[in-house]
Every structure is written in structure tokens, then in C-alpha cells.
């Protein structure tokens, strides 16, 4: 028997848990569960107690002595509720205390998490015997159903367009529901009920399909019930600002007792599939359906919350640890990222790339970096110190963050090399990538900026030390970024591997040989020196490119295709010498692309540019192409929110009529496009790749020249 879903029932004030039996049936269990939170009163405790006595939703209160931070115990009032209205009650107490008298704990933890933490359970747990840390575990054979809708519209579908058909696909079968709209809708609801899938997959279900289906079924008074219990958990969409970038979060449509996974918007599903989601749900103790809509950061923070729960530490509602005062020099020294060596521009051969796998998490675990261990008050004279910053690290206690991170590192290493477990490994990798960020994130409950600084300080030291060891052994360091080095020496693979072993032993964190390049090109920046993280090459027979247009989301397909073809031509070269010989053929590729664009012989699909909206239409100050596209869309009744993608084709770059500048691919207006502008985009991208070898003006002349120049003339 497996636990597959868990959610609160706010009206009955109980938890509902769904179990999956091996015979394929699922059953629901209702369980009484009293939520609780804690209050620490710095004064006016009598007012608090009086208030708590008066409100009916409080079942009882008690006095306890608990950890209110990772180190300090204090007396607190435990409040146990009848009703599931923690947030309302807690907000009222907070308000009463003027947002400072009462410190509240364990308030904003979701119900499923509370339940799982308290009962030591987790989603997809085998109820007979199981552990979230298990590497080999059985998973239930869940019944899956994919569905999609076809809407009667040759433009951008909207709610007013009627439903033409629905496509359903199970593992064995696939078919179509057609006919009258009303019939399709009732048939769909009936089918889901009878087929009884555990997982319902949609494409854009949250963003469009479900809101659309709700609208349509409402017209016929059909109640759209698709869960195992009636009712949905719905949430509105919103745009928000995060680290200088605007992000759009679509609305959410969650089912009860059945999981709705939106295959388009779910990051975790895209990256790791159901298998990865399962792994992460087990580790983070967040139900699959909810987890599929969250970020890796939320998953890691749930793991931290559980670890705090386990250690008996209360979870503050709002973080209270302020940053220590620093001098300007301290700040300058401390507030830095990883180290980067400027690359040596040009093409190189006999180059090996070596990487520390999961460097930051390994540092956290190896050097015991945690909010309560860095700058701890119990060992000011500790021998363990952060390089350069000289912060002391606790010698007596193992930190709490290292304990959260370690099992993830170990699991990921154990999954390595098994292609069947790729989904699991990918999601664990994402957890490790984000766990470091959460040390310094100001909203993270157990974050602390000094930890963040310590990790990067260790990383810089490690990279420099590795460089010194490599140079001692006669390797030339061509480039280095945070946790990777590009080393040059005319030797066999074996010698690179030996070097990795030596550095790994010396540092205590494994350094691995990513591969040997037949050749690699480091590109210059416009300042005339090597650009950071812009390179391409052939590593162990495979192409690898970073930082060029090919890898960028906002570039039209045609530009990416051209660069890919250029790379493929170059990839035929086995050595540096051959690389130079391949340049003429590569220029020929560029010529071909420019020629097709000028001739008008391209698929419009390849010209689409998608740009993320950074603000609402009325907030744009200049009339750029994005604005032109947005205005056109608005005329069609389509309104986009900041953070969403805008897609357009450049029609006439220079025209003063704003409506003429772009066309919207979904509107299928005509086949006009700005040949000159797209040629420019192609040439720019081509030059970017070849900039260490070819001058931009000459490249332009050569490619667009009517007269056939010989290569000799040209060079």
C-alpha cells in the first residue's frame, strides 16, 4: 500500500489521505489532525493568554521550553487549534503585538507538510516499510491519462471559441471525443470517472485548458468535477519580481485524490519526469501534484524545515537574524562570487576540462557550513576558519544544513552512471544547485549571508589551489569558472586523470575529468579580452557550446540553425590545423543562410523571436518591437502578463507605422519579413563565433558581395 495524496479538508477540519493498493484501487482515509503553532512573548503575555482563551478555534494551549533558534531555547506558548485557520489566528496575534511583541513559529507550513513531518510519513511511501533516504525503493504502478483539447479557432484560442474535440491517451490506448460540445464535456467527465486515473496530464492545463473547460462547461451547467473527491484547489496567476527579473506564475488547478500535472509549466516534470518528481516528493515531503508546480528552492527549503522539525527546532514565521556589521573592506572581501580566470582567446588543442562535481554543496558538507556553525559563539578560537574572511567555524557540532545536503550528494553520486535513473539524478542536481543560493536568500528561513560568503570563499581558494597544483605539473590554465578549469598540455588522457586524482586527494572534494577537447575556441568580449563563459569546441567527439546565440532563448531558430550548421562543419576538424582549414566551408554555410533569407525562401516558424515581457504594456517607455507585438495582440483581445513570452516576426524594422513593424505568428497575416534585419542578425551571430579569426566588416563584405571574391582576395 502506498500513500499517494494528502490534503486538508477545511470544512470538516481533518486531513484526507489517499492510499493506493497493489490491486490498482485507491481508498481514502479521514484523519483528525490538530494543527499547532507557537508564540514567544517578549512582554504582555497576559494579553496574549486572555486573547487565546476567548477565541473558539483554540482547542488548548500549553507551555513548553523549545529551541527558538538553532542554538537557543526559550519558553513558548503552544497553541493547538480545532479549526484549520492557523494563518488568520496567527496574523491576528501578530497584529495585536504590533508586529514585534509576539514572535510566532510554525505558522506558514502547508498542511500536508505538517502532517508528514509530524507523523514521519512522505508522499509515495510504501506503508509497509520505507525511508525517504532509500536508494532502491518500489514505486506504485500509477494509472496515467494524458488529455488535450482542440479548439475551434484558427487564431489564438480564447474562451469564446467552442470545443471541437478532446484527445485522450492512456499507456495502452488513445482516442478522440468528438461531436456536440456538451456531449464531449460530459463524456470526458464520465470517462475520467470510469477510467479512474491516478495522474491526469495536460499540456497548458493551468494556464489555459482548465480555465477554458470551466468556462465552456459553465455554459451548459455541467459541473466540472475531475477529482476523486469533488472540488478543486485553485490559485490565481500572478507576476512577481525576483532578482531583477520579472516572472509570471500561471494559475493553478489541483485535483483531490488525483494528481493533475501540467506537462508544459512544470519545471520538475520537464527536467526529471514522473520518476524525478517521485524522488523529490519523497525527499522533500511535498505531495507530487503540488511539488510539480514548485521550484527546486521550495523543495530544498522543505527538507530544511523537516530537519528543523526533527531536531525540535521551531520554524520562525519571519526571519530575525540580521546581518553582522561589516566595514567596507570586509564587505568588499566577503561579498564575492566564485573565481573566474580570464580565458585565453583563440583556438586551442590538447585541452582537458576538469570539474568539481557539486562543489558548493560539497563545501557545505565538508567544511560544516551552517547558520549556527559559522561565527558560532562557542568556539571563537576554532582551528577551522574560512579562508581570507577568517570566520570561525564550530568544532563541536555538526551543522544542520550539512545534514540536509549530505544525503542528497550521496544519493546523486549513487545514481550516477545508471541511465534508468537519470530523472532522479537531474532533480537532485537541481536541489544541489539551489541549496547554496538558499543560504544567502533573505527570505530563506535558515539562510545567513555569512554562510553564503564562506562557501564562495572556500570555492575561490579551492580553484586557486587546483590551479597551482596543475601548473606544478606543467599544465597551462586556459580558463577557469568557479568549479571548472580548462587545462592545456600535450599528454594522454591518463595524465589528466592522474592530475584529477591528485587534486581530489589534496582538497577532499572529487575533481573529475569532463573530457578532452580536440579543439576549443574561447571568444573575446567587446572589451578586447576573453569573454567569460563564451566558448565552443569538440569534447570527446561531441559538440559543446556556451554563451553563443545557439544557446540563447531569445534568438530566432534560423540563427540557431545556422550556428549549429557552422559548428557541425567545424566539428569535422580533428586538430587546430584542420580547424583553420574548415573556416572557408563554414563561411559557405553562412552564405547559404543569408542567400535563403534574401530570396525569401524561409519557413516563417524559423523567424519567430520570443522575448520575455519585463513589464506591462502601458509601462514600456520606448516603442520597441516587443511593444509593437503587444499592441497588436491587445487588438486581438489577447492580454499578456509580465514574465510571459511574446512571440513575433520582424516585418519592417524601420517603418514608422508601429503596426507594420512586426507580425504575430499565431495571426498568420502574410509572409512578409524584414530581409535586411534578418541578414543582419545572421551576420552578427556568424561573426560572434568567428571573431577571433575574422574581421566583422570583411565578413559582411565577403558574405553579401555580389561579385564572387576568392578566399585569397578576401583574407
Amino acid at each position, binding site marked *: 500500500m502506498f500513500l499517494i495524496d494528502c490534503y486538508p479538508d477545511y470544512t470538516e477540519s481533518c486531513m484526507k489521505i489517499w492510499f493506493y493498493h497493489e490491486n490498482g484501487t485507491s481508498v481514502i482515509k479521514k484523519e483528525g489532525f490538530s494543527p499547532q503553532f507557537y508564540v514567544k512573548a517578549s512582554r504582555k503575555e497576559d494579553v496574549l493568554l486572555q486573547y487565546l482563551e476567548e477565541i473558539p478555534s483554540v482547542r488548548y494551549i500549553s507551555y513548553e521550553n523549545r529551541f527558538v533558534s538553532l542554538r537557543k531555547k526559550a519558553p513558548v506558548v503552544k497553541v493547538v487549534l480545532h479549526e484549520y485557520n492557523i494563518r488568520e489566528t496567527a496574523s491576528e496575534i501578530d497584529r495585536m503585538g504590533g508586529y514585534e511583541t509576539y514572535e510566532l513559529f510554525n505558522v506558514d507550513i502547508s498542511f500536508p507538510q505538517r502532517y508528514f513531518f509530524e507523523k514521519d510519513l512522505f508522499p509515495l511511501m510504501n506503508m509497509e516499510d520505507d525511508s525517504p533516504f532509500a536508494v532502491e525503493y518500489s514505486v506504485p504502478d500509477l494509472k496515467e491519462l494524458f488529455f488535450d483539447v482542440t479548439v475551434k479557432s484558427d487564431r489564438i484560442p480564447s474562451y469564446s471559441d467552442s470545443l471541437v474535440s478532446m484527445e485522450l491517451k492512456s499507456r495502452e490506448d488513445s482516442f478522440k471525443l468528438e461531436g456536440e460540445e456538451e456531449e464531449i464535456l460530459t463524456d470526458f467527465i464520465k470517462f475520467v470517472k470510469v477510467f479512474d486515473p491516478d495522474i491526469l496530464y495536460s499540456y497548458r492545463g493551468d494556464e489555459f485548458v482548465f480555465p477554458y473547460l470551466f468556462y465552456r462547461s459553465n455554459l451548459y451547467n455541467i459541473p466540472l468535477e475531475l477529482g476523486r473527491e469533488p472540488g478543486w484547489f485553485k490559485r490565481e496567476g500572478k507576476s512577481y519580481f525576483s532578482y531583477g527579473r520579472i516572472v509570471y506564475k500561471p494559475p493553478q488547478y489541483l485535483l483531490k485524490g488525483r494528481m493533475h500535472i501540467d506537462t508544459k509549466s512544470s519545471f520538475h516534470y520537464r527536467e526529471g519526469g514522473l520518476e524525478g518528481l517521485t524522488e523529490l516528493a519523497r525527499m522533500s515531503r511535498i505531495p507530487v501534484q503540488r511539488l510539480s508546480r514548485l521550484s527546486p528552492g521550495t523543495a530544498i527549503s522543505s527538507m530544511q524545515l523537516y530537519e528543523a522539525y526533527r531536531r525540535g527546532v521551531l520554524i520562525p514565521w519571519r526571519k530575525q537574524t540580521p546581518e553582522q556589521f561589516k566595514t567596507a573592506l570586509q564587505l568588499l572581501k566577503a*561579498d564575492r562570487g566564485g573565481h573566474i580566470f580570464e580565458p585565453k582567446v583563440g583556438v586551442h588543442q590538447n585541452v582537458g576540462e576538469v570539474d568539481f562535481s557539486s562543489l558548493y554543496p560539497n563545501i557545505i558538507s565538508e567544511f560544516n557550513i551552517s547558520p549556527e556553525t559559522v561565527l558560532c559563539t562557542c568556539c571563537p578560537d576554532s582551528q577551522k576558519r574560512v579562508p581570507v574572511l577568517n570566520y570561525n567555524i564550530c568544532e563541536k557540532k555538526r551543522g544542520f544544513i550539512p545534514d540536509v545536503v549530505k544525503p542528497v550528494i550521496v544519493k546523486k553520486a549513487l545514481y550516477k552512471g545508471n541511465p534508468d535513473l537519470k530523472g532522479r539524478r537531474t532533480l537532485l542536481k537541481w536541489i544541489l544547485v539551489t541549496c547554496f543560493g538558499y543560504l*544567502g536568500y533573505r527570505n530563506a528561513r535558515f539562510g545567513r549571508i555569512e554562510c553564503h560568503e564562506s562557501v564562495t570563499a572556500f570555492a575561490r581558494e579551492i580553484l586557486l589551489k587546483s590551479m597551482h597544483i596543475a601548473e606544478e605539473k606543467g599544465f597551462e590554465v586556459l580558463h577557469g569558472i568557479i568549479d571548472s578549469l580548462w587545462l592545456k598540455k600535450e599528454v594522454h588522457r591518463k595524465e589528466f586523470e592522474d592530475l584529477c586524482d591528485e587534486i581530489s586527494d589534496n582538497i577532499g572534494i572529487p575533481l573529475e575529468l569532463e573530457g578532452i577537447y580536440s579543439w576549443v575556441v574561447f571568444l573575446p568580449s567587446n572589451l578586447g579580452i576573453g569573454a567569460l563563459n563564451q566558448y565552443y569546441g569538440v569534447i570527446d567527439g561531441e559538440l559543446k557550446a556556451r554563451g553563443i546565440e545557439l544557446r540563447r532563448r531569445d534568438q530566432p531558430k534560423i540563427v540557431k540553425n545556422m550556428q549549429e550548421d557552422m559548428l557541425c562543419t567545424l566539428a569535422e576538424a580533428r586538430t587546430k590545423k584542420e580547424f583553420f582549414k574548415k573556416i572557408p566551408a563554414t563561411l559557405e554555410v553562412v552564405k547559404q543562410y543569408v542567400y535563403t533569407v534574401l530570396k525569401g525562401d524561409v519557413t516563417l516558424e524559423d523567424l519567430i523571436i520570443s522575448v520575455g515581457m519585463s513589464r506591462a504594456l502601458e509601462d514600456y517607455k520606448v516603442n520597441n518591437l516587443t511593444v509593437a507585438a503587444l499592441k497588436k495582440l491587445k487588438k486581438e483581445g489577447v492580454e499578456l502578463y509580465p514574465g510571459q513570452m511574446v512571440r513575433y516576426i520582424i516585418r519592417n524594422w524601420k517603418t514608422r507605422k508601429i503596426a507594420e513593424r512586426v507580425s504575430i505568428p499565431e495571426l498568420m497575416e502574410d509572409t512578409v519579413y524584414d530581409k535586411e534585419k534578418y541578414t543582419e542578425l545572421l551576420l552578427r551571430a556568424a561573426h560572434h563565433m568567428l571573431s577571433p579569426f575574422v574581421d566583422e566588416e570583411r565578413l559582411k563584405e565577403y558574405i553579401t558581395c555580389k561579385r564572387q571574391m576568392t578566399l585569397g582576395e578576401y583574407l
Partner: protein
Amino acid sequence: MGRTAATYRMLTESEIRKWSEFRKALRKKDREAFDELMKRVRKHASASGYMASLDVFDSMSMAILVEHEKEIAALKKKIEHVSD
């Protein structure tokens, strides 16, 4: 994620900008020499960043000295070749 203070590379760029008036008043040949020097400065931005000295100009000068030392060594080698 941590704070979002200016990186050392950005500080270096703003220091270079500070000298833009000086640069403006130079003759073309001297301007080219100036730009060449700044290229050398940027080449060692990572070392300057690692040291993170409060005086950006100090690390800039040191970067130029290092590059000059290398050039002197290279030229010396060439002269030896000629005198042989």
C-alpha cells in the same frame, strides 16, 4: 542568492571611466596606448577581484606592471637572439 553589490569587474570599469576625460585630451597615438593599457588591466581583473583591495587603482597599476615585466622579458629574449 546573496547580495547584489557591484563586482570588482564593475568597479574597475567605473575607475576606467573616471579617466575618460584624461583620455579625451590625449592625442590619437597616446589614446591608443591608453586603451592598450586598459586591456592589460582587464586581463587581470580576476586577480584584482581576488585581492579585493579598496584602492582599485593600485591593482590596476600592478596589473600593468606585471604585463610590462612579461613584455620586457620577451624583448630581452629577442635581443639575445639578435646579438648572437
